[in-house]
């Protein structure tokens, strides 16, 4: 009689391990959930109200009870009521939702930055210290983390449901999202934008750790080269330093301290130099010529991967002086296509070691 104990055990275990509500594992999650519960409450009230209206009228005015209908034209007051009350509620939801949106998408200034590259079908995270991970992301709790993300092929979307954050990862454009994890643990990373065959395999795990554990992890996973160091190598091997040498006579603008500054272009417009600008200027230089320079830089479209671009951007970001460039120039001189470039030392005064 009854259900077999094996099946019973299975069912109990199965139901017990099933999920009904996501964990609240970031500082944003409680804010999102508060709005969610507010929305659920007004929806339930609305739904119950409509259901009661329909049920009550159906019982009270069914044909058995009320054989002859009384014609009613309408009622301006009633109609105004059910225009204004929903409108007011919707406007509350709009304002609340807007505030939450800005909270989720405006990163705090002290956020640490991690790069994420999406490609069919994996997530590649790159920490500034050079730690690379595939389909995994290690972050410290209690500290804001900003992800600067880009796709190497199609649209992807980076989602951590337990943190209530998600952002489209777009080809050819940096997008950012930030969060601050609160509880150590592992949480799902999903790609939520359909991206081809193995879309449902583009998943991973974010591991939130205490700052001490995180530091330990950083040290253990060190690849020996930071992103900026990788960028420096690329800068030399691609010959960037030939023109961007920092010399007064150089054919390219000085890159030291350029990140975060306002730049005037040849068409007179002013731009803020950020990650996106640097990336665009490398790939599509003819559209981004600094005032006073000739449009001679070739495009690097198709010659450099998104990972490489991130390395270069990270390198330029940290470039406070041209000392290292000029050092590199000495060691990498044999790679230069143009032997007539002025040699090191002609502009010694611009070098501030």
């Amino acid at each position, binding site marked *: 009689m009854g259900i077999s104990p094996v099946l019973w055990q299975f069912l109990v275990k199965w139901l017990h391990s099933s999920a009904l509500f996501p964990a609240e594992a970031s500082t944003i999650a409680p804010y999102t959930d508060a709005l969610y519960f507010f929305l659920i409450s007004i929806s339930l009230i609305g739904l119950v109200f409509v259901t009661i209206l*329909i049920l009550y009228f159906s019982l009270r005015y069914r044909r058995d009870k009320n054989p002859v*209908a009384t014609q009613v034209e309408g009622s301006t007051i009633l109609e105004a009521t059910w225009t204004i009350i929903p409108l007011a509620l919707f406007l509350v*939801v709009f304002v609340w939702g807007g505030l939450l949106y800005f909270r989720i998408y405006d990163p705090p200034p002290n956020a640490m930055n991690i790069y994420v590259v999406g490609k069919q079908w994996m997530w590649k995270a790159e920490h500034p210290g050079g730690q690379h991970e595939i389909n995994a992301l290690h972050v410290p709790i209690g500290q804001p983390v900003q992800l600067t993300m880009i796709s190497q092929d199609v649209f992807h979307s980076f989602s951590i449901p337990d943190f209530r*954050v998600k952002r489209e990862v777009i080809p050819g454009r940096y997008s950012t999202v930030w969060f601050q994890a609160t509880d150590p643990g592992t949480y799902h990373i999903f790609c939520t934008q359909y991206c081809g065959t193995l879309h449902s395999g583009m998943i991973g795990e974010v591991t939130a750790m205490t700052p001490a554990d995180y530091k330990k992890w950083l040290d253990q996973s060190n690849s020996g080269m930071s992103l900026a160091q990788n960028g420096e190598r690329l800068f030399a091997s691609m010959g960037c330093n030939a023109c961007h040498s920092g010399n007064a006579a150089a054919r390219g603008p000085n890159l030291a301290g350029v990140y975060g500054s306002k730049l005037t272009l040849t068409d007179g417009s002013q731009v803020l130099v950020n990650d996106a600008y640097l990336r665009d200027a490398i790939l599509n230089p003819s559209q981004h010529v600094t005032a006073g320079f000739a449009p001679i830089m070739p495009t690097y479209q198709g010659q450099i991967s998104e990972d490489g671009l991130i390395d270069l951007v990270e390198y330029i970001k940290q470039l406070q002086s041209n000392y290292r460039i000029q050092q590199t120039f000495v060691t990498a001189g044999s790679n230069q296509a143009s032997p007539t470039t002025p040699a090191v030392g002609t502009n010694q005064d611009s070098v501030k070691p």
Partner: protein
Amino acid sequence: MSSTATIVSLPDQATARLPKRSYLNNEQGLLSWLLTGDHKRIAILYLISITFFFFIGGAFAGLIRLELLTPQPDLVAADTYNKFFTMHGIIMVFLFLVPSVPATIGNFLIPIMVGAKDLAFPKINLLSWYLYVVGGIMVLAALVLGGVDTGWTFTTPLSTHYLNTHVITAALAIFVAGFSSIFTGLNFIVTIHRMRCPGMTWFRLPLFVWSNYAASLLMVLGTPVLAITLVLVLLERVFGIGVFDPTKGGDPLLFQHLFWFYSHPAVYIMILPGMGVISETISTFSRKRVFGYTAVAFSSVAIALFGFFVWAHHMFIMGVSNYSALVFSLLTMLVAVPSAIKVFNWAFTLQKGSITFETPMLYSFGFLGLFTIGGLTGVFLGSLGMDIHLTETYFIVAHFHFVMVGGMLMAFLAGVHFWWPKMTGRMYPESLSKLAAVTTFIGFILTFMPQFILGYLGMPRRYHAYPPEYQVLNVLSTAGATVLGVGYMLPLLYLGWSLKYGAIAGDNPWQATGLEWQIQSPPLTENFIETPIMDHEAYDYEWLEQKKKNEVTTVG
């Protein structure tokens, strides 16, 4: 059962016969159907073809749910699964939902409701059906040749550069089917403007005509944008013109803007005619004029108008500027208001009515409940911060199925059951059809309610495999889909049965007021023997009583 529990009054079955001459038997032979200019025959052609595609699309839905029964990717390969949901989407959206009510029920009824003999351009109407069929055959061709796996949204650069399936065939199919929709819309607009019978002022039009008019405006203004977008996708795929490709200086987000500029209004193309059906059925089965006729009429037009300015709410997480996201969120909240107005107006139409619960009314109640849930969850998604967590998950899948399937398909079935006696002259078995309505409602709730919870948990849409802790809810959803499948098969069986064995319906089995109910069932090819003169308001049940009394005295 007391005799007052129903308003159905059928003629004496012993003596009743179908009319000797009607649009169905006016001409004989297959060619007389394939070359017809009669809007009623074209409506029947449409009804048969969209039913065919509905069940194909439904079969794919069944396969999707079957795969999702287990967390492992064990039923089919990933590519096959992707083809399943792409085909499900393309067929259901472009070949079922968009033409469903307008091209079948609208085609059949709009000329009759405005008191005209036919639509303004009968041959264009027939051409529209042929374009639909060509589009449909091309979709089937893409399917048979190996399928397509872009998703129904054809997102670039996936569709242009990264897939080697039959994208071109499928996109051309939708391009062609789009023209069928443009022609239908054009025909409706001209007919409603120019061919109303004497006395039929704009505010005497049945609300079904108003809502189809609003939907037609959207079809004519929106569909060309979809056509242009698909042509750009094709050019990009074949010649690499670089409109959307970032490596050539194109903008991949531009595609999304263009696509949703059509596809958001398309949602209203799908739902508005359904709302028209509900206005008719609720009025008829509560014997009352629709509460606030003008408000309901104008709310349709308001939805159509606002519907064009909310497309970017599909792109809140895609890096549109925060401030433009604010504007689109606000407009989205505004477009929700006319829908709320409609729901309350329908509910208050019941007040002081004399309500009966025939099958079309049960489907209409189903519509009210499910559409209210679908509409309210739309507010969740229109709210910026909430949308970040909910978009691209099963929450959004559940939301639009509540609106499109719970709303539109319920309305479509309400309409088919309501006007079936007019279209065929025969009634279907009442208790079986009520059972189908209830089964559909229960199956629907069971299928899609768990998906809201899955969505908040974060389960992404279009996933072939998922983490094991989501299984219980997926099993519930699949079980519901089974019930839902039974609910949809039942009407196919008993409506087919009724064609031969159903009771003779007579001219006006529901005692409804519309012009279509004052003529014989099934109607003559020319609809009216003499041009009708509209001398009363829409939904004037006192006029109907008066008319019946006069008939009794003159005939009897």
